Structures are given as structure tokens and as C-alpha cells.
């Protein structure tokens, strides 16, 4: 379970780390100082234009001059500033559809939710609303200024018309001589012009009184009176116009645009500051995060290095172990090989030792009696010489001139009495018998030595044409001491062609098989040797015994190296395996028939020149025989 969880946890940790890094990066990349500053400037401009409009209106009103010309310039400026703001605003409040902005907003939201303030999310909408608000306020202000301007123009027109009409009426009156009326009208009109600027909606009476007074001036001239009534009507009409101007002025002055602009600016500035703060926080966090990451990296680096060194060490250890093992294996293999070679050698030596011991025994026996006989012969001859001494004396006497008859007579008498002819005959017979035996014994020794030489074939070529019957005969001679005490040897030799082989190796096969058979029969039984040619043209040799046989279960094991039923130390278990190896070298085969308790018959078959087919073995064989 842990094994599965650990990689998952690791992946999760990496993803989280990357996520946090992304959030921090997005948050910290958020502010644009240049934009922020120009937006601020635009907002100031807007505010100032607003303020200027208001003051222009007030000034224009005060000076009773037309504001429209000045206003149109300001209005243009205002529009430009507002467009600037709008543009900046669009840049500052990024497109909601962009993936980056979306991600950033999400990141900010996440960051803020962690940071503990929900302000930024609201601020965008709020900012947009504020700007919209400001815009409409701006439009309202402009509209109001325009209305004021129109209203003022109307009022100023009415006033100028009143002044001109008044002057005309006063002039006409003075012409006609109605000086008093002219003075009243003049004063009244002067009063109205003076007062109408300061008129308030709740205090229109003085001006109305002036209009009434002018209308009541008694005038005989109808024409003039109608002019006076016209004047009063004009005066009366001037009051609402002025009041309208007042109202419009009041509206313009009371416009909150400037304050709003200032507020928006403050808001933007605050927002900017807040954004800066967030970015700052994010940067600090990012730094902390980076530092932590670095620490982590260092930690992992150290761990990696440590585990690397551990790995290195264990790798080295492993290498060492592997080398150790390899060395051990090599040693074991070499030992095995060596001991196998030694065992094969031991098997050779053991069969060689048996062979030598047997031959030595065969030689020792004749040696014993030849030595004895030689000494006996020597003694018998000395005895004979002693016995025949008197005959010798007689012969000497007979040679003398003149013949010493007495001596001859005495010697003849001596011969007649002392010389035991039977003993003499017996002695001579014995000498003959002993020397005959000795000669036979020496011939036996000679034959043995010769056959030993033939058997080893040390002075012959390794490969030769070889009559297997010769080999069998020689082997029988060699193993005579194993066989002669109770084993009957039956030879059924058919004529066979000579085979090309390594005769010493084939002899080794024979000696191994015959030794095995002799041991299987435990000294008593019949050894049957057969030779012949089979249907394939192979030369076959049969070695049959009446020994203990091989149990069926062991039949397929007997050719294995080291398989032996003999007690430890008595057999190497290599006999048959060596036989099989030699048969393989000659391209021959080995067949075993056995019945437990009844005996074993081993059949070898050799191709006529099987060794030629297996000639590549020659080198190996040469070196082996040299080593041997």
C-alpha cells in the first residue's frame, strides 16, 4: 500500500507546489504603474475641468457674460479626458473574457480568500460602476451648464432689450416733456437692472413694484402709455428669466462631479495601493515560497546526494560482493575442474596401480623360484663337482706315464664304493628340472615385460590399425592375477578387420571392463570374450560375466561419472564413464545388458575408422597422454 501511496503523494505535492507558484506569480504580476499613474492624471484633469466649469459658470454669471464660448472648449477637454479615462479603465480592468485575466482573477480570488479580504472582486464592479456614475454625472454637469448657458442667454437678451427699450422710452418721454415720468421710468429701470441680479425667488416684490410703478405712471399719450405697459411687462418677464438663471446656476454649482471625480480617484488610488499591497504580499510570499523551495531543493539535494552516496556505497559493496562471488565461483569451478582432472587421473592411476600390482605379483613369483633355482643349481653343481672329484683324479692318473696302477686301483675302488650313481642321476635330473623351470620362469617374465610394453604402447604411434583380439589377449595377460584364481575365461573370437584407433585407449577400455567383470564375479565365474563384425560393418567386442549384475534402477546411471557401488576409497566411479568417453572419441558405442544376480554383458562396437571422424580429438588426446 505504501508503495502505491508514496508516488501519489509525491505527485500531489509537486502539483500543489506548482499551483501555489502559479497563483503567486499571477498575483504578483498584477500591477501596471504607468497606466495607474496616467489614469490618475486623467481623473485629476476631469476633476479640474469640472471645477473649472463650475467656476466659469459662477464667474460668467457674476460678470453677466456669456459662458457658452468658454464652455464649449471645456466641454471638448472634458470629453477627451473622459475618453482617456474610459480607455485606461478598459486596460486597467482587463477583458473579462481573456483566459489570462480569468486565471488571474481566480488566482486573486483564491489569494484574497486566503488573505482574508473580499475586496478586489467587488472593486472591479464597483470601479466600473463608479466610472459609469462619474460619466453620467459629467454628462449631467455638461447638460446643466448648457441649460444655464441657454437660460443666461435668454435672461441677458431680456435685460439688454429692457435696457434698450427703457432708454428709448425715457428718451421719448423727455422729448415729449414728461420729465417726471421719464425720471420714474429711468430710475425704475435702473433699479430693476440693479436688483434683478440679486433677485431671489422669495423676494421678487421690489422688481414687481418697479414694474407696477412704471405701469401706473400717468400718461396722457396713449401711445406712450402702451410703451410704458410694454416696459413693465418686460420687467415682469425678466424676473422669471433671472430666477431660471439662478436656478440653473445653483444646479451647476451644486453638481457633485468634482467631488465624485475626487472620490473615484481616491478609490482608484486606494485600489491601486491595495493591489500594490497584495502584490507586495504575494511577492513576499513568493520570496518565502521560493526560499522554502530552495530549502526543499537543498534538502532534497542533500538527500539525493546522501542516497546517491549510499547507493554508491551499496553499489560498490554489491560490486565487491559480485566480485567475491565470482571469485568464489571461479575458485570452486577451478577446484571442481582440478578435482575432476585429479579423479580421472586417480582412476587412471588406480587401474594402472592395479595393473602394476598384478604384473608385479606375476613377475615376483617366477623371480622367487628363478632366484631359488639358481642358487640350488649352484649348490647342486658344487655337490656334483665334489662327487666327481674322484673321477677327475682318476682321469688325471690315467693320463700319467707310466700308469700308477696302485693309485688307479685305489681310485677305482673309491669310485665303486663312494660314488652313488643314483644320487648323481638325481642331482643331474634336479639341475635339469631346475634350469628348465628357471628358463620357463624367465620366459614368463620376458613375456610379461613385453606385453607390458605392448600394452602401454609408449613406443608406438598414438593412432594405428589395431586388431582388437590382440588387445584382448594382452589385457588378459595383464589381468591374469585377477582372473586366474577361479575365473574361467572363454574366448569366442571371430575374425575381425583391424580398426583405426588409439590402441592404448582401447586397451584401457578392455582393462576397465575386464577388471569390472572380475570384481563383479568376486573371483569365481566365467568371463566370456567375443569378437565379430555386426550387420553395420562395425567391429564388436562382447565382455560377458556371470557376476552380480546391475540392478535395473541403476542401469542408466552406471555410465555417469562418480557413480559407484564400491565403498568409499575403493573406486572412483569413473571406470565406465571413461570407457564411454573413449568410445565417443572413436565414434563407437557402448551397450549394457544386465540381469541382477545373473551377470552383465557389455558390447562395444567400433566403426572401422571412427577415429578419423573424430580426429579433432587427437590434439587433446596427445596432450593428455603426454600429461599421463
Amino acid at each position: 500500500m505504501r508503495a502505491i501511496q508514496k508516488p501519489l503523494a509525491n505527485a500531489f505535492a509537486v502539483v500543489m507546489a506548482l499551483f501555489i507558484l502559479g497563483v503567486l506569480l499571477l498575483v504578483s504580476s498584477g500591477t501596471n504603474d504607468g497606466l495607474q499613474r496616467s489614469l490618475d492624471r486623467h481623473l485629476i484633469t476631469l476633476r479640474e475641468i469640472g471645477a473649472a466649469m463650475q467656476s466659469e459658470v459662477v464667474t460668467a454669471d457674476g460678470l453677466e457674460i456669456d459662458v457658452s464660448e468658454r464652455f464649449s472648449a471645456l466641454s471638448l477637454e472634458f470629453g477627451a479626458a473622459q475618453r482617456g479615462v474610459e480607455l485606461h479603465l478598459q486596460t486597467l480592468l482587463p477583458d473579462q473574457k481573456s483566459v489570462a485575466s480569468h486565471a488571474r482573477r481566480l488566482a486573486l480570488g483564491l489569494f484574497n480568500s486566503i488573505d482574508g479580504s473580499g475586496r478586489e472582486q467587488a472593486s472591479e464592479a464597483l470601479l466600473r460602476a463608479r466610472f459609469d456614475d462619474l460619466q453620467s454625472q459629467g454628462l449631467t454637469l455638461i447638460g446643466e451648464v448648457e441649460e444655464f448657458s441657454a437660460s443666461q442667454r435668454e435672461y441677458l437678451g431680456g435685460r439688454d432689450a429692457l435696457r434698450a427699450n427703457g432708454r428709448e422710452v425715457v428718451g421719448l418721454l423727455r422729448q415729449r416733456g414728461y420729465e417726471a415720468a421719464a425720471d420714474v421710468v429711468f430710475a425704475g429701470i435702473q433699479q430693476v437692472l440693479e436688483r434683478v441680479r440679486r433677485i431671489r425667488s422669495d423676494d421678487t416684490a421690489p422688481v414687481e413694484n418697479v414694474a407696477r410703478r412704471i405701469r401706473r405712471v400717468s400718461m396722457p399719450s396713449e401711445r406712450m402709455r402702451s410703451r410704458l405697459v410694454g416696459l413693465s411687462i418686460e420687467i415682469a418677464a425678466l424676473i422669471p428669466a433671472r430666477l431660471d438663471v439662478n436656478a440653473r446656476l445653483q444646479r451647476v454649482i451644486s453638481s457633485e462631479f468634482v467631488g465624485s471625480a475626487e472620490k473615484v480617484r481616491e478609490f482608484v488610488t486606494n485600489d491601486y495601493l491595495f493591489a500594490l499591497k497584495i502584490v507586495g504580499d504575494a511577492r513576499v510570499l513568493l520570496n518565502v515560497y521560493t526560499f522554502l523551495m530552495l530549502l526543499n531543493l537543498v534538502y532534497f539535494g542533500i538527500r539525493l546526494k546522501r542516497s546517491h552516496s549510499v547507493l554508491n556505497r551499496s553499489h560498490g559493496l554489491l560490486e565487491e560482493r559480485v566480485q567475491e562471488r565470482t571469485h568464489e565461483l571461479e575458485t570452486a569451478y577451478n577446484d571442481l575442474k582440478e578435482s575432476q582432472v585429479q579423479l580421472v587421473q586417480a582412476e587412471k592411476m588406480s587401474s594402472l596401480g592395479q595393473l602394476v600390482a598384478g604384473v608385479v605379483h606375476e613377475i615376483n613369483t617366477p623371480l622367487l623360484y628363478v632366484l631359488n633355482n639358481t642358487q640350488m643349481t649352484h649348490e647342486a653343481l658344487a655337490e656334483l663337482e665334489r662327487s666327481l672329484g674322484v673321477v677327475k683324479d682318476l682321469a688325471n692318473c690315467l693320463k700319467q706315464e707310466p700308469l700308477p696302477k696302485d693309485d688307479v686301483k685305489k681310485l677305482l675302488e673309491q669310485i665303486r664304493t663312494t660314488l652313488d650313481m643314483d644320487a648323481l642321476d638325481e642331482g643331474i635330473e634336479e639341475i635339469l628340472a631346475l634350469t628348465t623351470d628357471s628358463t620357463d620362469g624367465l620366459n614368463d617374465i620376458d613375456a610379461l615385460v613385453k606385453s607390458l610394453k605392448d600394452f602401454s604402447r609408449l613406443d608406438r604411434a598414438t593412432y594405428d590399425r589395431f586388431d582388437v583380439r590382440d588387445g584382448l589377449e594382452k589385457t588378459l595377460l595383464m589381468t591374469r592375477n585377477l582372473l586366474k584364481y577361479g575365473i574361467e575365461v572363454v574366448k569366442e573370437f571371430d575374425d575381425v578387420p583391424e580398426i583405426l584407433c588409439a590402441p592404448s585407449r582401447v586397451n584401457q577400455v578392455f582393462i576397465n571392463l575386464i577388471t569390472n567383470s572380475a570384481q563383479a564375479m568376486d573371483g569365481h565365474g566365467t568371463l566370456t570374450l567375443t569378437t565379430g563384425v555386426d550387420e553395420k560393418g562395425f567391429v564388436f567386442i562382447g565382455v560377458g560375466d556371470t557376476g552380480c549384475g546391475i540392478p535395473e534402477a541403476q542401469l542408466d546411471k552406471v555410465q555417469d561419472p562418480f557413480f559407484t557401488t564400491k565403498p568409499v576409497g575403493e573406486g572412483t566411479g569413473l571406470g565406465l564413464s571413461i570407457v564411454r568417453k573413449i568410445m565417443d572419441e572413436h565414434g563407437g558405442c557402448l551397450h549394457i545388458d544386465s540381469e541382477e544376480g545373473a551377470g552383465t554383458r557389455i558390447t562395444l562396437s567400433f566403426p572401422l575408422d571412427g577415429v578419423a571422424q573424430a580426429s579433432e580429438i587427437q590434439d587433446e588426446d596427445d596432450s593428455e597422454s603426454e600429461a599421463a
Partner: protein
Amino acid sequence: MRDADTKANVLFVDDEPRVLNSMRAMFRRQYNVSLANSGLEALEALERETIDVIVSDQRMPGMTGVEVLKVFKDIAPNAMRILLTGYADQDAIAASINEGEVFRYLTKPCSPDLLKQTIALAVEAVKGPQVEANEPVVVVAPPARAMPQDLIGSADAMLDEVLGTADEPAPAVASSAPQTSLESKDVELLLLSSDLELIAALDKALEQAHVLHAVEGIDEAIQVLERHPIGVLITDIAINADEVQQLTNQLKQHVPELVTIVASDHSDAHRLIDLINGGQVFRFLLKPIKAKQTFIWVESAVGKHLELVRNPDLLARHVVAEREDSSLRKFGDQLVGIALRMVRLRGRSAQANQA
């Protein structure tokens, strides 16, 4: 004892007729020579006549030489048994000691002189010195040496101590008082070995039947022999094979009553042959030893020892030739002392027997 004039009957057994021919030619003048071509024929010959000496080959069809000799040992124990073989087979040698108890183990080819000498010795052991023999008798029975008086005294003192007759200080030679006969349990054993396993195994095998002295060196062994009535020496060949060979040889010459058993974890054919011919070793124990067999063998060795003490005529049957290279001559005096004790012991036993 048979009439000394009668020629000794010597039987040769060999599967090679020419060997028999040769033997007959060699010995027919001195002895009545019988020939047997096999073990079976040898047994037939035994039925026909009394055999004094049998010389047998080891490897023959039918019975082996050791088997033939074993039968002779059981049926005609008086016949001296000699093995003559060309085959130094270790098992055969061990068997010739333990089963055949052979007098000599001769290897073919054996020089005619050695053969003659050996057969002469064997005949002498059966029939006493052959006056008419042409060949000079080489070896004479050892205890005929001159013995210093102080040695005789100390030997007597020790014997008294051992046999519990110290309260009768009368001179031993002239004593007519009834003597205590030597019993089997009085015979003490000497073990010469540094093999703790062997010591432990032997101690266990003996079942406290005898006092066992275990020593590690030959000097010590001689000292123990001087002080205790040792009848059987059991020696481990591993101590020092050469010295053991010399020791058994020296002891057999000076103290022929002492019976020797040799123990070894391997059998070296030539050493074993030397131990037979030069030390008349009674048994060969192959390590690790088997308790029961060891017990039986030690008991029969004790029996043999007592037999030799009581019947000194038998000593000639185990006579050996002195080795020329002996490095143990320095122990000559001690050995003489031990030998003397044996002679005294023999004298007392003889008296006891008469009584």
C-alpha cells in the same frame, strides 16, 4: 616334544607348481617337504601328517593363504605359520596378524638365505635347536644374559610388592614356600599414545578389567614397564612409527613375554610387515577401535602373556632378529631389569604350577 632325530615336516602351499618344485629342491635334504597346490590340498596334507612349519602363498584360487593359516592355527596350533607372498595387500597383512598370527610375513621374491633362515628358526621353535643343521643358528633366546645382583634384588622386591608376598623376604631362588600364582587381573596394561580419543575408547572398552597406564613417550613407557607388572603393551603407531617399530623389536628381544598390540588409523603395508617380523605384534587395531573386539583382543593378549610366562618354551615361537639400527639401545639396562623381572615371575609361576 617329538624325537629330535626326525626331520621336521615342512609344508609349502602355492598355486604355482614351479615354486613348489623349487622349494622341494631347496629343502628336501633338511626337512620332510610336503607340497600343496592349493589351500584344500594343504588341509589334506594336514590330515595325513603332523605339520611343523607351513609356508603359504597368499593369493591362490579357492582359499587365500590367511584363510589356510587360520585353519592351521585353530587345528594345528603348534605348526609355525609363515606367509610368503608377492602381493603386499594391506588387508591381507592385517588379517595375517589378527587371524593368522603368523611367525613371519615374507614377500616374494625373497632371498634364498632369508627363506632358509626363517624356516630354520620356525623349525627350531617347534623342535628345539637342530644340532645337525648345517646352517648356523643366528638368534639365541635372549634371557641368557648375565644379570647383576642388585638388579635381581630390585626385581624380586617389585615382584613381592606386586604379588603381595613382601612379608616373605626369603631369597627367591631358594624359596620353597608356596607362591601366589599370577592371575589375569594382576596383569597391567601400558598404552603408549597421545590420541585422547583412543585412550578414552580403550579405557571404556576394557571395563576396568585391568589397570591401564597411559603414557605419551617412550622414556615414560620404559619407566612404567620397570615399575609395574605390565603384560600387554598397546601402542599407537602415530606417536612415532620408527620408534614404535624399534621399541617393539627391543621389547620382543628382551622381554618376549610382553605381548604387543598396535593401533593405527591407517595400515602401511611395509610398517606392518616390519611389526610382524621384527616385533611379533599380536594384534593390529584399526582406529577408530570397536569396543567389543578390542576387549576380546586385549583379553586374549593377556592370556597370551600368561601363557608365555607359564610356558617359556613357547617364547621361541616369537623370536625376532635384533635390528641393527636400533636407537633404543640406551635403554638396555632398564630392559634387562624388566626382562629379569619376567624371568623371576616365570620362575614363581612355574613353582606355583608345580605346587
